[in-house]
């Protein structure tokens, strides 16, 4: 069944969309989109290191993303720079280091475009296993820290005062974010991962009125984007990552329609 590369890509993509749904909602609620971006830029460095030392790509991306996240926390304590400046600093310096290292690796045939924008042809049966097992682990951990994470998202002090230990769940959440980026880099590509986290959640925000509803809709629209995007990618021979994101964008525009109608009705 998994012999066909297209089926493999679909199965892996749907798995990623399911994990990206709830995490994407948290990224939107916590205004972390730029943080997601930084992690995914640094993912390129992770991929380069994986090639240099022949490590597993997902593992190396996860480690680098986690290191960058920890660096951010320690820099925030030590410097007087704002969070967004530090994120920019880390994003572009890790991206630059990654690209410089790629230059040294000229002996390896390197598909830079594939790294940046994703490549469905590259998805193997092992990748599917990684996405579904890794994704399940992420979702199970997320389930256990949800109450703490969610309450800290609403108000940190309130969560801390009422014994939810938000500092612990915040830290774990950062690792989970690094994890989902590691899982999806092959499919979506380093530059577009944040899009798959953000856009389905943004679609969901437009048409939902409770946190749970928003998560479910984010997952569904993520799956729809992946399926339609991959078919389009096959039909018109475009990179898989951008195709998925373009479909998500179209869904987002459609999701604005109910908002408009609601606005018009209220005006009357």
């Amino acid at each position: 069944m998994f012999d066909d590369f297209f089926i493999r890509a679909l199965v892996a993509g749907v798995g990623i969309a399911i994990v990206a749904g709830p995490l994407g909602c948290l990224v939107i609620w916590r205004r972390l989109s730029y943080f997601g971006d930084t992690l995914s830029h640094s993912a390129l460095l992770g991929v380069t290191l994986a090639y240099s030392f022949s490590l597993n790509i997902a593992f190396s991306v996860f480690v680098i993303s986690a290191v960058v996240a920890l660096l951010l926390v320690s820099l925030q304590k030590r410097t007087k720079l704002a969070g967004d400046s530090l994120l920019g600093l880390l994003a572009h310096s890790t991206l630059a280091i990654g690209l410089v290292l790629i230059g040294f690796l000229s002996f390896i045939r390197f598909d830079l475009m594939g790294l940046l924008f994703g490549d469905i042809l590259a998805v193997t049966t092992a990748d599917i296993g990684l996405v579904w097992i890794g994704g399940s682990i992420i979702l199970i951990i997320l389930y256990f820290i949800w109450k703490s994470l969610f309450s800290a998202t609403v108000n940190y002090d309130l969560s801390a005062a009422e014994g939810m230990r938000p500092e612990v769940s915040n830290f774990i959440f950062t690792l989970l974010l690094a994890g989902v980026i590691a899982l999806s880099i092959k499919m979506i590509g380093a530059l577009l991962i944040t899009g798959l986290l953000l856009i389905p959640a943004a679609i969901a925000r437009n048409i939902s009125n409770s946190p749970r509803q928003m998560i479910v809709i984010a997952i569904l629209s993520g799956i729809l984007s992946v399926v339609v995007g991959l078919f389009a990618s096959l039909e018109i021979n475009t990179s898989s990552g951008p195709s998925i994101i373009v479909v998500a964008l179209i869904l987002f525009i459609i999701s604005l329609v109910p908002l408009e109608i609601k606005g018009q009705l209220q005006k009357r």
Partner: protein
Amino acid sequence: MNENNNLLVRLKDCGIQKSSKWIVKGISLEIHKGKIVTLIGPNGSGKTTTAKMALNILKSDEGSIENYSTKMAYVPQKISIDWTMPLRVIDFMNLTSHINKDEIIEALELTGVQHLIYNEIHNLSGGEFQRVLIARAIAKKPDLLVLDEPVQGVDFNGEIALYNLIKEICTKLNCGILLISHDLHFVMSATDHVICLNGHICCSGSPKSIVKNSSYIELFGEHNAATLSLYQHEHDHSHQTDGSVKN
């Protein structure tokens, strides 16, 4: 567990230092079950910081904190819910613990906002949201309740009703309350222990003793202090929670 079963929190010589400057220093206080302790003081005097130490949100840089409370509830001073989150009142009530729906409705009725249960939080007015915050804290049935200016933005009548409710909750749940308030009338008439803060504890004691204290008069000005001591001394009767005279 502890030598005194009614003790919930004890701060001993606590303080918070931020970039080599002490925000508060030498804070000692105790909160007991069924008692209301109030913090008063000018802006920036460290009231919220002190409350956060009692709640274990901030770690004291000196002294010691003993906390025997098993269930704390907090009504923070400033809270802004991000508009990026679709959060209804009922979701918010369940934020840190699961509360069944009847109890949620009951608590919202107490603060007069039960009709808003399915409204989105960001559509509420400041006063309405404040009532929801108080209802949420009550619904948790805490043994320690910390209220940081709980009635800000609430209309005048509501303010009195909510203060009475706080007093009532204290007796009903037998919980300890740490209250930060600028309403000196309520503080002086309804609380058990008053702490006057200005970076350190200027004076503390029962409301009666505190209005005569010279550092209290210095902090709040002669005029205010005089009004309030008059308020205390002119009355030879006591009030019930609804304001009627107790016989």
